[in-house]
């Protein structure tokens, strides 16, 4: 590594990040099509924002990309646990620090000097989105297999409860993606860093 660059993201983190981005995109767009077949609430997603053409096509995309999402997520989490990446990057985190950094971010005063060290707002967002993804996958499994995985569905208030939970986890993840992309636009060097893994000093 050249002396004037610092390593921010490992190769595994970068690869799983982009596979995850693709999987989430496919899952969300096909999921909106599936939602539209029997809307839970008094609205539907615009058809042009959906994937699959018809319900059967959307289900094919959804049940193909779910393997990509789940396997990729498991690889990332296994790496995060055993390499220490998760513990180093996400902890320690305190409520006070999180509130302070979220307020700073909203005032546009969040420092981003060292991209390899997450501020508390980032820590909370990244931990939160991991939990949302776990909830999304578990509720999705409960919807897919409410009989074979009845124990899982019953934790969520049976089939209909799992549907609601699946919807709210999706909403949380979409909200995260919107904020995440907005932040990348505000600090563009983070985008290249997620590709090259490196950041030029100064």
């Amino acid at each position, binding site marked *: 590594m050249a002396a004037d660059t610092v390593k921010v993201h490992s190769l595994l983190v970068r690869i799983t990040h982009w596979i995850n981005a693709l999987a989430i995109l496919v899952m969300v767009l096909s999921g909106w099509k599936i939602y539209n*077949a*029997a809307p839970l609430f008094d609205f539907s997603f615009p058809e042009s924002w959906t994937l699959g053409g018809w319900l*059967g096509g959307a*289900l094919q995309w959804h*049940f193909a990309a779910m393997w990509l999402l789940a396997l990729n997520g498991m690889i990332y989490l296994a790496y995060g646990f055993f390499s220490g990446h998760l513990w180093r990057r996400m902890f320690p985190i305190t409520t006070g620090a999180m509130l302070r950094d979220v307020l700073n971010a909203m005032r546009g005063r969040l420092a981003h000097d060292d991209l390899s060290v997450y501020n508390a707002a980032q820590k909370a967002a990244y931990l939160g989105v991991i939990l949302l993804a776990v909830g999304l996958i578990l509720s999705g499994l409960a919807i897919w*297999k*409410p009989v*074979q995985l009845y124990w899982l569905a019953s934790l969520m208030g049976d089939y209909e409860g799992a549907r609601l939970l699946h919807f709210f986890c999706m909403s949380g993840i979409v909200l995260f993606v919107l904020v995440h992309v907005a932040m990348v636009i505000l600090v563009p060097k983070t985008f290249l860093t997620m590709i090259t893994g490196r950041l030029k000093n100064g």
Partner: protein
Amino acid sequence: MDSNLKDHAGPLLANLERRLFLRRGLSLGALSLLSGCELTDALTYDERVQRLLTAMSKWNDGAQAWLFDPKRLAPEFPESMITNPFPFNAYYGEDEIRLVDAAGYKLEISGLVREKRAWGLPELYALPEVSQVTRHICVEGWSAIGKWSGVRFSDFLQRIGADLSARYVGFKCADDYYTSIDMATALHPQTQLSFKYAGETLPPKYGFPMKLRIPTKLGFKNPKHIVAIFVSNENPGGYWEDKGYNWFSGS
């Protein structure tokens, strides 16, 4: 055929499906490489994507057969939880519901079965009756709880001397609908040839004179207005399955 066979056939079949799934899983990677070479410029990009999606759906059939526990029962509910009115759903509208004439009705039996004679309604109604209050889950996402009564389908398959080691049971319906299921699901204790809804003769909108109620599969795998049942080792497909819905569609 005694009940011993029935008790053993389920797990054996599930094991068979598991082995087939593992073998298919191993060959899937090699297969996609092969097809990648053979297509070259003959197929458009969309067709290649569709091939991949269809292959994944087939793989999911295997994954679901592997997950399917022939002994796990779908949850049953108190009658107070029954959805009223129970929704009508078909590939056509409620104004096009087929009316089947009870007097002239015959249920045709064919394929890998010993007794291929047709059944009239009175003798079907005389079969031992069981009831269930279970959740019907539609592929669209909505669900509704209903009460169905009829004969346990595994009992019926044994009565007609069906080859319980065959892989598929197919159904043809008076409304030109058709579908098919795996033998392990056909032998599941809650799979029921239903003649009644909510204690009354099945009304036309719920599939008079009979539907196959399968609480371990999505709604479109529950054929209505059945006029023919056959046992086969070739997958007979289905109305929606041939258009792209996942074939196994288990719950």
